[in-house]
């Protein structure tokens, strides 16, 4: 069959309206540019390197509807609710104030982005649409044109949040696509921990979440993502991060389930001595697909980046890792480390791993490694000989393998949550 790459993705989103049609000039201009991009950009196929192993047909083969507001949702099904946090709840992309925290500290401005665009106009327009590339990236264009809402978060200068911000994304309406757009502004010297948890409870559902993040000089941000889906969910998630001098950004992405999951973190180290950590762990089963595609861009000297992604690939599932690190000509004294390791649990599971380093500076330390193998048979036998049955022994080795990533979640309750989710 001939597959053309020229068809527009718009045909799958005919029922959608633009973001905030009565919005400011800033938003209108972005929305118009995004629409032009959607008309112009081809749907990437197998010949496009960044999408080689991750077909978009799961999204482009359907006609999606926008989700209605006010859906009832079973919050009890969500994990992590016991962790003390400032909660923001989005159900099918619509903000639910009655489920969200009202009592916020003075240093934290946390609200739906539909409010943030007006109440925080100056900050909003400085950053919104300036980090994510809506003119050239298909998912960013879709998101920019059709986002229903999202969260706006600003932490004021030198403020440290006592509790994490927990953004709960529940998707409940079959046949809908939900675009969510978040903006996180960490002012100079501020410190915060943000958790995103995603749960898809109907099928088919498509979710597209883009978070633009500014981590100013000496600010620290941790962002944890917990992704759960079902046999008919497709989830696209991207962070577009700019870091200032001495800024630290740590991201952990835990993909627990979901038919189709793509993570596109994109970090620009723009300030001297800034550090970023990207960690991920994934456990696809059955016919699920998980694709982690990271880009880290070292633009200035003396920055560090550390990447560690580990996956356990079961059944007939597929996983993809592509980690691209650019070290630009000015970025002397860069330290960039990248590691991807996988265990393939069945003959029918597959893993495609591609580390990519592009180095244009000469005084740098960079390393990358990629390993994919099977569970260690000798270790399995050893554990069984001590009285653990096959499943327990297997589970113990899987936990040991991914523990290195899970242990990077700093709150014990988060680690316990992940362990409980991946224990069969």
């Amino acid at each position, binding site marked *: 069959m001939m597959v053309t790459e020229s068809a527009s993705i718009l045909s799958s989103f005919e029922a959608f309206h633009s973001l905030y049609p009565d919005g400011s000039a800033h938003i209108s201009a972005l929305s118009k540019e995004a629409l032009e991009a959607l008309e112009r950009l081809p749907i990437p196929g197998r010949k496009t390197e960044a999408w080689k192993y991750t077909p978009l047909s799961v999204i482009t083969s359907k006609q999606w509807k926008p989700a209605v507001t006010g859906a009832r949702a079973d919050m009890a099904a969500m994990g992590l609710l016991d962790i003390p946090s400032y909660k923001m709840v989005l159900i099918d992309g619509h903000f639910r104030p009655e489920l969200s925290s009202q009592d916020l500290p003075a240093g934290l401005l946390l609200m739906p982005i539909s409010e943030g665009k007006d109440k925080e106009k100056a900050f909003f327009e400085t950053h919104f649409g300036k980090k994510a590339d809506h003119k050239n990236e298909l998912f960013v264009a879709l998101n920019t044109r059709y986002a229903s809402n999202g969260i706006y978060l600003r932490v004021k200068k030198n403020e440290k949040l006592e509790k994490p911000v927990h953004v709960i994304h529940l998707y409940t309406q079959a046949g809908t696509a939900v675009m969510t757009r978040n903006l996180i502004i960490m002012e100079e010297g501020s410190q915060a921990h943000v958790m995103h948890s995603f749960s898809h409870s109907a099928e088919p559902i498509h979710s597209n979440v883009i978070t633009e993040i500014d981590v100013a000089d000496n600010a620290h941000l941790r962002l944890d993502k917990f992704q759960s889906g079902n046999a008919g969910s497709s989830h696209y998630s991207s962070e577009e991060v700019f870091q200032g001098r001495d800024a630290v950004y740590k991201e952990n992405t835990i993909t627990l389930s979901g038919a189709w999951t793509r993570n596109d973190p994109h970090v620009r180290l723009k300030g001297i001595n800034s550090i970023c950590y990207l960690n991920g762990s994934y456990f696809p089963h059955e016919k699920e697909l998980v694709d982690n595609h990271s880009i880290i861009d070292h633009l200035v000297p003396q920055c560090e980046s550390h990447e560690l992604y580990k996956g356990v690939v079961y059944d007939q599932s597929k996983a993809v890792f592509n980690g691209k690190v650019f070290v630009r000509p000015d970025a002397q004294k860069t330290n960039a480390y990248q590691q991807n390791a996988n265990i393939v649990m069945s003959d029918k599971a597959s893993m495609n791993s591609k580390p990519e380093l592009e180095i244009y500076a000469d005084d740098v330390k960079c390393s990358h490694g990629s390993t994919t193998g099977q569970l*260690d048979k*000798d*270790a399995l*036998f*050893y*554990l*069984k*000989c*001590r*009285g*653990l*049955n*096959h499943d*327990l*022994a297997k589970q*113990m*080795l899987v*936990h*040991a*393998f991914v*523990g*290195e990533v899970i242990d990077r979640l700093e709150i014990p309750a988060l680690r316990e949550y992940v362990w409980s989710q991946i224990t069969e």
Partner: protein
Amino acid sequence: MIDIKNLHASVEGNEILKGINLKINAGEVHAIMGPNGSGKSTLASVLAGREDYEISEGSVDFLGKNLLEMDPDVRAKEGLFLAFQYPVEIPGVSNVNFLKLALNEIRAYKGQEPLSAKEFLGRLKEKSALVELDGRLKDRSVNEGFSGGEKKRNDIFQMAMLSPRFAIMDETDSGLDIDALRIVANGVNSMRNKDRAFLIITHYQRLLDHITPDYVHVLSEGRIVKTGGPELALELEEKGYDWIKEAAL
């Protein structure tokens, strides 16, 4: 305790065990000696349940049950223990957590309650002191970063914790220095009693200076070709294995 009859086993079409007959009673310590390639380690692996081997003939009765039908973990739960020739390193699996889980799995199989944290720690302290590993186990992964001798001592420690009915020592002495050998032997000797049996597989007579066996068997070409008392080990040490091979022909 264990009754092995006419056991034949092969790997990838090569027959390695060619009819082993061996009966071990409770309270006895048997040693199996033999040259490299005689099938010693294959016998240990087959008894523990490693999957790489095909059993073409024979039977193994263990405490009245058919051992060969059991999964390796069931063999452990029924009271069989294998001390490995090469204990594996398992990064990320905590020594202590693993052993606690194993111990409680075995207890659950026997219908016993899990040990309380206090009981477990008490036993841990006592048994790790036995092999002079106290303080080396906590917060460590199984065998990770251990020297060869420490790995073997860890296996003996696990044996002491799990308290099996029948323990197979697969060349536990190979590569050990004199001190480690003494520690391992003390561990085994302290566990000898009338209800427990041992099968000690070794290439050298050295270990048998410290653990006096009741019987010594010589394995050659996949068969037990000679059986005697402890004096047979000394004879082998003196004369080597060649005379056995010739005698067997």
